[in-house]
């Protein structure tokens, strides 16, 4: 496996400009000769597909949803970052770059992170042009708020539904091109294989989820924008159908998988409330602008929160991290919460939560201001829990959320497989070992609107179209036959355990042994347990019905088969990395104060795994070099 990041020469500030200047173009009249497949219609997929169709390329878009607007970008709440410095509070592209690199614990590429900050301002301009109704000040200017891990206000927001509004913008651009006949949309199509022609991505194989037919589609380049895989933990903030299948099938065809074990646990999710729960709902990080996090100073304190006097409360984030306080980054805030819960200070009916309290903010700003800022979040909280957060503090707990890991990509977002581009959360690129809040919407948009149009066109200009040959057709036929066989073999198991039950078991192993905290012996156990689970899966899986009809159980089973194999890789990756960085916290590697201890001498690289056969992977490394900023111990004290 060859890993060439292809980062342009020159000073950090000029790399992206130089890349664009050197990128090859295709004459507008010739663009229609090239076909691009885009899988996924979240922010990264819709934005890329709309942009490429506008340029005049043939574009075909695939989504397993019934409408592109359902993609899980829609659920992002709090905001999107941009270095506009509207607040005159010392923000700049450089500071945003530095915050993001440090937030990721110096495990991302400098050049990628700088470009993300550099393109951020243009994204806000473009979203406004599309009609995204960002919050405004009374003078009509755009409003900002703060997010974790930074000391400036650079987050733009549309109440607590920023992801929905940005996705509407991208979806509308996509539908505009669809209406103009410039792109073809295939909803209810799930990608199940990647086609390669002489080592280059040349198409995909899908299952039509409405009638079960297996169909192949050829193209000159394939874009995967299929989102994250935090749902592997079963209870997560993700949607029920979020999966790793598209990237995993590409991985099995040779695409390197980078940093699989770096999954972020979001500190302000709702805690688990019962045994039938299928997901954990997120409460936006923006709430930490005004909410104060605390637990009682006494263990097993059963008193109602309102009756616990001020001096008997432990505002542990403010105590441990006085300069960032409640806005400490997510990995740190989540571990601090887990520490309190595990030591017996947890609150709520299952003692698995901490308080997020708005009492002081309500006194200071009044109920109306708080309602305008977070009204829909308070409403959502009440719907789920039945508790009024204007009267009582919220109960929150850490939950599996965002995958920093994903398919390895170069500076132009192309994987090690020629012609396979990976965008948004599906790739590994910009967040290092921990993502800062409000940077995920940004990355998905920047990848799709601002980077892929240049790098995809450059690739097609240099590599040309692929001829449709008999060899390609027979290759597609063979893949289709193989997919049909795989589905039949799952259906023929006829066991007694549903895919959902296997998923719950996998999630439990990962939460307990490869979650917020990891330790060698536990990880070795987890690996054995996952191998045993895998064996049981192929002996006892229950799927009703056939492959030639709407069959949600068959869909879930296929996704879970991939999740089990990915789960094993996640554990292997966590075992191999003998250091703590960002979301990856190895008990063996911590400071006396319980903070993460990085090992730059031995682990200043991105781990990239090559698939050899089931449960067997080979490690490759992309060394990380830092020229602009010297890695330091991350401190938020």
């Amino acid at each position, binding site marked *: 496996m060859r890993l060439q990041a292809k980062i342009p020469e020159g000073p950090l500030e000029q790399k992206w400009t130089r890349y664009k200047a050197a990128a090859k173009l295709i004459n507008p009249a010739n663009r229609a000769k090239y076909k691009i497949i885009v899988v996924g219609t979240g922010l990264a997929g819709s934005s890329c597909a709309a942009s490429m169709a506008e340029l005049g390329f043939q574009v075909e878009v695939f989504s397993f949803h019934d409408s592109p607007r359902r993609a899980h970008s829609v659920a992002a709440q709090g905001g999107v970052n941009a270095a506009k410095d509207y607040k005159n509070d010392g923000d700049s592209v450089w500071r945003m770059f530095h915050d993001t690199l440090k937030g990721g614990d110096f495990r991302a590429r400098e050049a990628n992170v700088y470009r993300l900050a550099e393109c951020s301002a243009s994204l806000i301009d473009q979203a406004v042009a599309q009609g995204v109704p960002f919050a405004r000040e009374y003078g009509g200017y755009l409003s900002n708020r703060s997010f974790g891990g930074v000391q400036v206000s650079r987050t733009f927001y549309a109440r607590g539904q920023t992801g929905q509004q940005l996705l509407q913008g991208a979806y509308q651009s996509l539908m505009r091109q669809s209406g103009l006949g410039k792109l073809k949309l295939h909803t209810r199509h799930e990608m199940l294989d990647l086609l390669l022609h002489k080592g280059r991505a040349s198409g995909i194989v899908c299952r039509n989820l409405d009638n079960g037919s297996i169909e192949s589609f050829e193209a000159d380049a394939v874009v995967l924008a299929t989102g994250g895989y935090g749902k592997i933990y079963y209870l997560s903030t993700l949607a029920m159908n979020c999966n790793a299948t598209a990237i995993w099938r590409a991985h099995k065809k040779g695409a390197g998988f980078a940093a699989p074990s770096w999954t972020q646990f979001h500190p302000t999710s709702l805690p688990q409330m019962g045994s039938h*729960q299928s997901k954990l*709902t997120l409460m936006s990080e923006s709430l930490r602008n005004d909410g104060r996090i605390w637990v009682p100073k006494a263990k097993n304190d059963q008193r109602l929160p309102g009756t616990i006097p001020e001096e008997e409360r432990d505002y542990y984030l403010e105590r441990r991290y006085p300069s960032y306080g409640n806005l400490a980054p997510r990995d740190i805030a989540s571990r601090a919460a887990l520490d309190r819960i595990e030591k017996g200070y947890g609150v709520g009916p299952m003692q698995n939560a901490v308080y997020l309290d708005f009492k002081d903010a309500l006194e200071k700003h009044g109920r109306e201001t708080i309602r305008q800022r977070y009204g829909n979040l308070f409403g959502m909280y009440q719907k*789920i829990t039945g508790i009024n957060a204007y009267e009582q503090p919220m109960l929150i707990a850490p939950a599996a959320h965002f995958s920093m890991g994903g398919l390895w990509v170069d500076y132009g977002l192309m994987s090690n497989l020629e012609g396979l581009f990976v965008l948004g959360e599906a790739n590994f690129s910009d967040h290092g070992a921990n993502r800062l809040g409000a940077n995920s919407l940004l990355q998905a948009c920047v990848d799709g609107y601002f980077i892929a149009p240049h790098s995809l066109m450059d690739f097609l200009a240099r590599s040309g179209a692929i001829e449709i040959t008999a060899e390609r057709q027979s290759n597609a036929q063979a893949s289709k036959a193989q997919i049909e066989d795989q589905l039949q073999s799952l259906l023929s198991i006829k066991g007694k355990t549903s895919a959902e039950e296997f998923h719950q078991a996998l999630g439990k192993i990962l939460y307990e042994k490869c979650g917020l905290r990891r330790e060698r012996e536990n990880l070795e156990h987890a690996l054995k347990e996952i191998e045993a689970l895998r064996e049981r899966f192929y002996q006892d899986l229950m799927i009703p019905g056939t492959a030639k009809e709407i069959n949600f159980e068959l869909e879930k089973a296929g996704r879970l088969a991939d999740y089990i194999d990915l789960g094993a890789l996640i554990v292997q990756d966590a075992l191999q990395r003998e250091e703590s960085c960002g979301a990856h916290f190895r008990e063996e590697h911590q400071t006396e104060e319980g903070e993460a201890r990085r090992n730059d001498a031995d682990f200043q690289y991105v781990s990239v795994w090559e698939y050899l056969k089931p449960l067997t992977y080979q490690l490759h490394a992309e060394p990380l070099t830092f020229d602009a900023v010297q890695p330091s111990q991350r401190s938020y004290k």
Partner: protein
Amino acid sequence: MELKLKIWRQNSPEEKGSFKEYQRSDFDPAMSIPEMLDHLNLHLMRAGERPISFESDCREGICGQCGFMINGQAHGPEKGSTACQTHLRSFKDGDTLWLEPFRARAFPLKRDLMVDRSAFDDIIAVGGFISVDTGPAPEANSILIAHQTAEDAFDAAACIGCGACVAACPNASASLFTAAKLNHLALLPQGKIEAQERVLQMVEAMDLKGFGACSLIGACELVCPQGISLDNIAKMNGAYRKANWGF
């Protein structure tokens, strides 16, 4: 908790459907409606029966994928909620719940509680956007928008495309959906320019897709999980009149 469920079962659009009754006493009041169906499906599968087909994804009321009629109401009895935000604690032990798909000519049934809502995408495709290409655009703060205007535009833009408005309407009209998008865009300076053309195209698409006309009954507003106001329809009608006849 014990519930009697009467659920619409229909294998395909071609076959006839009917309500089928299920009864269980091991439901938990903390379950959401989709979690209740997951639980029921597990037991149906174990008994060798085909599980109930229904759609649900984010389970936090924002993706718009879930939605069916619960006791004759789109998304069920809780105001401002989707089916996935409705929990069994909203019902009493021993209650009977009738679950059936959204019914409208423009939403053909696929199976059981699943319908095809792609007609909504088709309405957006003819004009539910601002005609601006992606990429660099003028500085964001060069377009000033009053605080209240942005809030009003957001209120209209909050639509999740679930289709409850159509299902609740005796005419199966898509007016609330269409009007919400029209007003979101028409309120903003950058969206005003195309407003006249947009209203003509989207209203025409709505008719062509087989949605009914609006007679201002207001059932749509009552069931909308995002609380989108009926005022949007009045504004759409005004804009349509002006675009067509100039007054």
